[in-house]
Structures are given as C-alpha cells and as structure tokens.
C-alpha cells in the first residue's frame, strides 16, 4: 500500500517535472527568430541607405526639390509630391494599394509592389516595383521617362546627371565649362541665352541660375588649370549653380558676361596683380535685387495655442493652416513663386521664431492668416491689417518718423510699411469683392506684434467672424477655403507688378 502511494507520488512528481521534450515548433521558433534577426539587420540598413540626395524638378519658371530615396540599389522618388508640383490630378488609396494619374484622356495606373505602369490598358515595365514608404507612394526614377513623359503634352527632359528633370519648353540649357588658358581663363558656354546671378565669397565664385533649368554637360581642362582647385555643379535644394573654387595663389576673379555669345568668362586675378575695381570684379547685377525670392505664408497660432474656438473641435489654428496650405498651392500655381509656410503642421511657434525665419530668409512678402472673433457683430467681414506703433510717451496712434536712419529690429517694418499698406489695399479690395459682399471696407491698422518686426511687406488677414453661425458652418468647407485662398492669391498677383522689379 505504502509502496503504491510512493509510486503514485513519484509518478505525479515526474509528470509535473518532466523535462519539456523537444518539439517540432521549437525548430520553427528558431527559424522565426533567425528570420526576425535577419529582418532587423536588413531593415536598418534599408532605411540607412535612404540617402538625403535631392532630385530637382523644373516647371513653369519654378523648381522643386524632391527627396531621393535609395532602397537597395534603386533610386525612388515621392510621386505625389511630383504630381502636386506638376499640377497633375491623381487619385490614390494606400489601403487598396493603387494610384492613378489622369492627364486629359490618358490614365496611368500603378499597383503597389508591381514593377509596371498600366497606361490605358498597355503595360509599361519599370526597373523596380512601385511601393509605399512611410505611407508615401514612391516610384523608381525611370517612371518619369518611361511613363510620365508619354502622357504629358509637354516636353520632359532629364539632366545628364539623372538628378533633375525639366518639364515643358525649353528644357535644359546645356552648359559647358572649358579652361581657355590654364593660368588664367575659364569660359562657361551656354547653349542658349541664360541669366546667372554672379556672386563671389572669398575664394568661391558662384554662377547661380535660380529656377532656370541648366545642365552642365561638359567640363574641360580643369585638371590642368593652375588657378582652379575645383569646379562643381550644385543642383539641389535652393541651389542650381556652378561653383568655381579658386586656388590659394589667386586673390579673386573677374567675371564678364558676353551676352551676345551666351557665355561667362571667369578670369583669375593673382595676388601680385593690381587691386581690382570691385564693381568690375562682380560685373553688372544680372538679377535685380528686388526680384521676388519667395513668399512666407504664416498660419496663425498652432500647437497648444488653439486661437479662437470656432465651434466644437474646430479651432482657428486648424482653419488657418488649411487656408495657408491652399494659398501656397494657389500662389505657386498662379505666380510660379516659391512659397514657404511658417508652420507646415500643428506645431506651436513663437512670434519671434516666425519673424526670425522670414527675415533671415529675406522673404519678399509675408501674409499671416487668422480668423476673426467679434461677438459684438452679426456680420462676418474679413479684414486686412497692417501694423502701427504706440510710441512710449506719445499719444496712441502717433508713429515715429519713418525717416530715421537706424530702426531697432523689433520695428523693422517701418521701412516696408508703405508697401505693406499697398498690399493691404490690394488684399482688402479683393476680399471686399469676394468675401465681403461688395462692401467698400477699408483695411485696418493695429499694433500687431508679429508684423512690427518684419522687414518686408507684411499683412495679417482676419477671415470672417467666428461668432456668426453661417461662418461657423462653412469655415471648414473646401469650397470656402479655396475661395479665400484664391482671393488672397489674386491680391498678391495684383500687388506683384507694383512691388517687384524683375
């Protein structure tokens, strides 16, 4: 009996403490672990190889750089950014895994993970599959030449470097840099008339071509030139230029533009030579200083600063950002000018940050977008504002003379106030016509902190009145926001010929 109990207890013990027998799934588990490990090894290397190189697209006197993604050996481009810049309509669904581009009667359809494009039922093979990276559609670069060029009614020209494309006439202007005299002269020859902004910083001579599509196709004799260290062609974000690095024995260079021969002559001035005339060194300015660089659109508030609560879950910061994005789109489309948003998403930025960014970038124009909030009014009129100053010790509204030689940075707007008022007039006139029911309302002046320190024509726009139910209902609608964006873009279009001196 005792023996039986002991045997039973031992059996229970053994059942409870049996070593786990080797099973098939442990081997499978190991395989999975190895696979996961390999995946972990591969994934960072895939993202690590994603370079930060840029691909430049020229279209209608504007340029846009797109980030190039290197996945394995293949270079990819974000196709939606490209289509937006080229103003091509598309429809896409990440979840369904397709993107379709419609150009007049042609349809380009791509399916995720397939190395092909279907053009009106005809299949075109691509060098690599179309895919989604971080929820963003990316295509191999040969998509442009193999597929997009077939449906566009405009000329599509690729640069020899493969890093740029020009859509529309006249395509790329071909440049050839040739050393004419190994001790002295370099000639940059263009295939057609082209304007460059000539700059010289120490030992660097820069020929900047702005938004003109140029392609350096030839470089001759630089290795033999004693006075040149290197000639490089930068074609990336905000740079489209030839950079000539001078050697140590060269003090500076004289640059001449032979317009009749479409060429620039760069001539070395050595240290032992006579002091050059500075104006002769730089040559005549080819691009006037007043040519518009870019426009800054400021979406008011952001982040924790929600601005006016328009209705439940709709705040001023969101409306301002939506309108700012649409205005950027309208301005780039209508004016072909680069537009910068002071905040591209829902982030808090101090007024000082916004001011510094616009001033440092030497923006040509600044428009801040806000919504109105006037509980005492039953109307939802929109107004443009310029700044005014309340000088300490003087009565309100009295401003200091604008003729002062130096102004403190926080009053930088003094130098541009007259232009700001012209801009405000243009904006108010357009808003009266499109948003204020044809009423003859004047723009307003207020001591606005943001505008006071901006060194360029700057206005703040207050759209509607958040306390009017009709405005609350429509403010988040696409048609209304498109109307506001189109109205402001029309005002800028009117203002441009008054201000810009191309």
């Amino acid at each position, binding site marked *: 009996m005792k023996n039986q109990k002991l045997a039973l207890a031992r059996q229970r013990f053994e059942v409870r403490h049996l070593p786990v027998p080797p099973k098939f799934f442990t081997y499978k588990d190991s395989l999975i672990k190895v696979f996961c490990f390999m995946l972990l090894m591969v994934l960072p290397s895939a993202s690590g190889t994603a370079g930060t190189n840029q691909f430049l697209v020229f279209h209608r006197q504007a340029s846009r750089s797109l980030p190039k993604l290197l996945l394995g050996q293949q270079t990819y481009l974000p196709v939606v950014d490209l289509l937006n810049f080229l103003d091509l309509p598309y429809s896409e669904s990440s979840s369904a895994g397709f993107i379709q581009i419609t150009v007049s009667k042609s349809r380009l359809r791509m399916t995720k993970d397939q190395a092909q494009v279907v053009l009106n039922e005809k299949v075109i093979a691509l060098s690599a599959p179309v895919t989604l990276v971080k929820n963003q559609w990316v295509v191999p670069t040969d998509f442009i030449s193999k597929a997009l060029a077939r449906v566009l009614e405009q000329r599509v020209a690729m640069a020899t470097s493969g890093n740029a494309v020009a859509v529309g006439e006249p395509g790329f202007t071909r440049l050839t840099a040739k050393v004419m005299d190994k001790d002295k002269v370099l000639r940059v020859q263009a295939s057609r008339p082209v304007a460059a902004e000539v700059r010289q910083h120490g030992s660097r001579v820069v020929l900047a071509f702005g938004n003109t599509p140029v392609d350096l196709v030839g470089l001759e004799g630089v290795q033999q030139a004693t006075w040149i260290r290197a000639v490089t062609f930068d074609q990336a974000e905000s740079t489209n230029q030839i950079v000539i690095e001078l050697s140590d024995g060269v003090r500076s260079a004289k640059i001449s533009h032979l317009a009749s021969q479409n060429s620039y002559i760069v001539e070395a001035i050595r240290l032992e030579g006579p002091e050059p005339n500075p104006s002769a060194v730089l040559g005549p300015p080819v691009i006037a200083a007043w040519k518009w660089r870019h426009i800054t659109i400021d979406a008011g508030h952001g982040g924790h600063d929600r601005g006016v609560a328009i209705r439940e879950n709709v705040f001023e910061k969101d409306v301002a950002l939506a309108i700012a994005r649409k205005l950027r789109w309208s301005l780039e489309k209508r004016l072909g000018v680069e537009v910068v948003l002071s905040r591209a998403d829902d982030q808090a930025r101090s007024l000082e940050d916004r001011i510094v960014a616009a001033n440092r970038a030497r923006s040509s124009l600044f428009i801040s977008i806000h919504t109105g909030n006037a509980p005492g009014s039953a109307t939802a009129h929109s107004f443009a504002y310029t700044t005014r100053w309340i000088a300490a010790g003087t009565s309100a509204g009295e401003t200091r003379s604008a003729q002062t030689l130096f102004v403190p940075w926080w009053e930088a707007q003094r130098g541009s106030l007259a232009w700001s008022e012209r801009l405000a007039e243009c904006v108010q006139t357009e808003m009266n016509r499109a948003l204020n029911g044809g009423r003859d309302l004047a723009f307003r002046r*207020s001591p606005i902190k943001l505008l*006071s320190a901006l060194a360029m024509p700057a206005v703040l726009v207050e759209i509607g009145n958040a306390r009017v139910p009709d405005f609350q209902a429509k403010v988040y609608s696409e048609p209304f926001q498109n109307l506001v964006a189109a109205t402001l873009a029309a005002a800028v279009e009117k203002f441009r010929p008054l201000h810009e001196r191309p």
Partner: protein
Amino acid sequence: MPRHILFGLVFLLLISLIGVSYYYDLQRRIEELVRPGAEPTPYLAVPPSVSPSAPLRKVKLFFPSSRQENLLEVEERDIRSSELPSEEAKQIVAELISGSREQRLPALPAETRLRELFVTQGGLAVVDLTPEASLHHPGGLTMELASIYSIVNSVTQNVSNIERVQILIGGVEVETLAGHIDLTQPFAEDLSMTALGGAGMSAHEP
C-alpha cells in the same frame, strides 16, 4: 513563546505603528498643500488698502459693446476713493474683471485675478494679471484690442496720475495677450474705440 521572537514581534509592531502614523501625517500634509487656501478677495489677489469708510466716487468703466464691433461702452461704478492712485486703479481693474452689469461683453475672462498693480513716478501703471487673462481669452484681434483698451482707458480716464499702462501676465512681460497685439510696450489712452472718441477703431483706417 521564545523571548527573541517576542522582541521581534514588538519591534515589528512598533515599526508598523510608526509607518502608519507617518502615512497619515504625510496624507494630511499633502491635503493641506493641495487644498486651496482662503479665497482671495474677488478679482484681487491682494486687497486694496482703502478704508471701508472712505467716501465713494463714481468711475467710468469701458466694456466691449455687445451690439457693435470695435466699440467700448461706458458703465458707471462706485469705488472707494484713496489718495494712492494705485489703490483706486486696483478697484477699477477688479470691477472690470467682475464683468458688466448691463449685458455688455466681458473685458477680461472671469477667471482672471489682479496679481499686483503699482504706479511709477512717470505716470505709468503696471497692471499684473494672472495667466488666466491670456489662457481663457476668447481670442481674435478685435477682442484682444478691446480687452487691452478696456483696461487702459478705464484706468487712465479715472485716475488722474496715470497716463500709460503696461500690462504684465503672471508677473512677466509677454509678447501678446492672445497672439496679436504687442504687449511689450506701454499703452496710452485711446478713445477712438469709444463713443467719446467718436469713430470706433475705424478711426485707424486710412
């Protein structure tokens, strides 16, 4: 029971008692910290030092109109007169924060308190409001301007020694009250938004 176990149990009991008493003491102290202190005088963090028997005087307060945009309307109130301009100004700002009695719009959010108000020799009144003035502000450029000039005009119109007003939030100089109007400079009286000035803010229009 062995003696050493008895000592051990007594020791544990003592430790437990100390722990429990410390816990309750800590809880009481935290409650004291969290519990709001005595309610300050409404709308004033520091009560004005005026005699309750001091004679009353009428003052004109400016509140944003509920009928028209960019208009400040006058409402009369009684305050205790004082030889010190700051003490009168404190009462004026407290009355402004308390809101209109005639259905006008609030000049400042009701949660606001006046932290401090003092007057410098140059006739500059420094009005230090709690952060609620900014955090609970309804927003919008016109309401912001109305809030500022409600304070500035109410103080400068009623206290003879005050010519300009500098507004601080939470004891520090801030860029703006609600994202638009520059608060870094002192404001002088501006009646253009009032019926006294005649034209409302449109007086600034070109």
